[in-house]
């Protein structure tokens, strides 16, 4: 239980090479659950491993609690790490895997037993305590890896894609367990994942990385509703936010032949990227439609389906409930409050002039729904 302060940290692997992590600043509060997301190679693991002490820090400082840990051995940092491939000790029983870190810290035998029993119960692996890892299924191994972290009661948990080797169903349930556990133990946690659902459901705050730099830090909903850039917009949310090239003309936005009304905004007239979440596109009849397209393909997801088509030559996807019957064309409407504007070149979000305007209109929007 400690805060973690990542202060202007950079990492360069090879002398003269590019920065794998570039001048990153994150202040993590005690007990907070931080999720790092970003595409492959963006530096998530590198950052995590610097916190763990498995990788040297090229510049900047990392503090855990009030202590700068740059030069402190991993074992002395009071952290526990869960690895993607579990990294269980293959020659030890599950019990010994759990007990190993405690033994090395000179925890009395009696206490080790109590703690291991506790963790094993929590994770429902009591039956397997005498087995070697090779005799466990993937999900069970995963739980042992978790157990190894929690018995230690460390100041912080570090997770590097701990669920990515599991199948979808197990992933959902393990995700819930991890969240519950962390809430219960109130241990600060940093969690690396590729998986958006994990990112959204687990995080107190999300950190979106891209190419070694931070694109956005915020709560999942902030990030979802106000993506700071087209990168974040396309990365968070499934299906990915539709991004269309358009043109601002005063209070109007033109996308191909369509014209959409805009709220107050700061964008000068000219080209702009507009983002629209697939689920904000509502089906309506031709008269009320602000957007229409011919249906290219449909993916059935059960209760909903994804409808794909093209507007102005650009791909567009809408989410439509299975209960609605579809013709060959889809007619859609979208609230002005649900249009995200990004500047054309750098993809940065363009905010409305009054802070919070979006969220008030959002609530207003609800009244109509």
């Amino acid at each position, binding site marked *: 239980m400690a805060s973690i302060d990542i202060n202007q940290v950079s990492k360069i692997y090879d002398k003269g090479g590019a920065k794998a992590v570039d001048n990153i600043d994150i202040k993590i509060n005690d007990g907070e659950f931080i999720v790092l997301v970003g595409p492959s190679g963006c530096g998530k693991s590198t950052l995590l491993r610097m916190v763990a*002490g498995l990788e040297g820090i090229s510049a900047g400082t990392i503090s855990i609690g009030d202590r700068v840990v740059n030069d402190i051995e991993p074992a002395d940092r009071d952290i526990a790490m869960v690895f993607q491939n579990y990294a269980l000790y293959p020659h030890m029983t599950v019990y010994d895997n759990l007990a190993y870190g405690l033994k090395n810290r000179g925890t009395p035998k009696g206490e080790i037993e109590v703690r291991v029993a506790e963790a094993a119960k929590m994770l429902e692996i009591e039956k397997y305590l005498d087995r070697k890892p090779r005799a466990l299924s993937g999900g069970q191994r995963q739980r042992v890896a978790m157990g190894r972290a929690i018995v230690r009661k460390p100041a912080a948990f570090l997770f590097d894609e701990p669920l990515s080797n599991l199948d979808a169903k197990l992933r959902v349930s393990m995700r819930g367990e991890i969240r519950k556990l962390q809430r219960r133990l109130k241990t600060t946690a940093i969690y690396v994942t590729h998986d958006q659902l994990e990112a959204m459901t687990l995080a107190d705050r999300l950190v979106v990385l891209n190419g070694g730099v931070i694109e956005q830090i915020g709560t999942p909903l902030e990030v979802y509703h106000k993506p700071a850039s087209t990168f974040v917009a396309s990365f968070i949310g499934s299906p990915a936010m539709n991004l269309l090239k358009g043109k601002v003309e005063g209070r109007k936005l033109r996308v191909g032949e369509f014209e959409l009304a805009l709220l107050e905004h700061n964008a000068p007239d000219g080209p702009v990227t507009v983002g629209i979440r697939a689920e904000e596109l509502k089906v309506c009849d031709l008269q009320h439609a602000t957007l229409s397209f011919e249906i290219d393909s449909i993916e059935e997801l059960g209760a909903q389906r994804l409808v794909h088509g093209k507007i102005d030559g650009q791909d567009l996807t809408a989410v439509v409930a299975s209960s609605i019957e579809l013709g060959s064309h889809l007619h859609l409407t979208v609230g002005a409050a649900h249009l995200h504007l990004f500047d054309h070149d750098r993809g940065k979000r363009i905010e409305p002039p009054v802070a919070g305007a979006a969220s008030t209109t959002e609530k207003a929007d609800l009244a109509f729904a």
Partner: protein
Amino acid sequence: MYRIKLTDHLILIAGVIFMLGPLVVAFMTSTHSAAEIHTQGLMISMGDDFIPTYEKVLFESGGFTGQVTGLTMAMNSLILGIGFAVGKIVLSMMAAYAIVYFRFRFATLSFWLIFTTLLLPLEVRILPTYKVMSDLNLLNSYQGLILPLLASATGTFFFRQFFKSVPDELLEAARIDGAGPFKFFIDILVPLSRTMIAAVFIIMFVYGWNQYLWPMLMTTEESFYTLMRGIKQILQVWIGSQIPDYNEAFAMAVLGMLPPIIVVVVFQSWFIKGLTESDK
């Protein structure tokens, strides 16, 4: 973790000195004259006889026929080393292939027949083996030098381990792609085994190159003499009443070390990789 540890380097340097010191000394010594070495022993400085000694060892014809030079002996050693290594690789890949990839009745029996030989060296059965060789009329031939050394399972063992680590899907994919047992072996398995082949090649080449008792017994024609035999020949004077040509022995020893060292150094990255893969 990322700090440079001084003691590590000290230990490694000590290790390198322990391992390589004698080789340097051997080389230095080989550049002195025989009488000097006889009276003063090993040398740690360069002597004056480097060129004449090595020239003599390499190019001057010796023996009765006047045909054996260091070079021809080295050539024979090379034939023995390479022939043995290649033979070993071919035989043992085929055998390992049969054992790992086929279901057949006498699999277990074949396995044990082969692996019983794993640790029994030629020295222990040298006389009966000689008899067999002469019955087959293989004395004084390269086949005679090489074949009996092949009768052991070390290579088969390495390849068996390696083949077991090759993913099953490759075989399945190949079968669906229409590859039969021969095609799979040639097109897929052999190319896949490259690093393992390199590793086994080194181990076997060194083993073959270093043979000396068997070539000594086997060859009576000077054209088949190997380097190791040459060294032994020089040294046997040691036990008689003359001074051996130490300088030549050392020079030959140095020459005798070179090809295997070159092979090892050139292939070493493959070597370690091959072994690592087989460890999986």
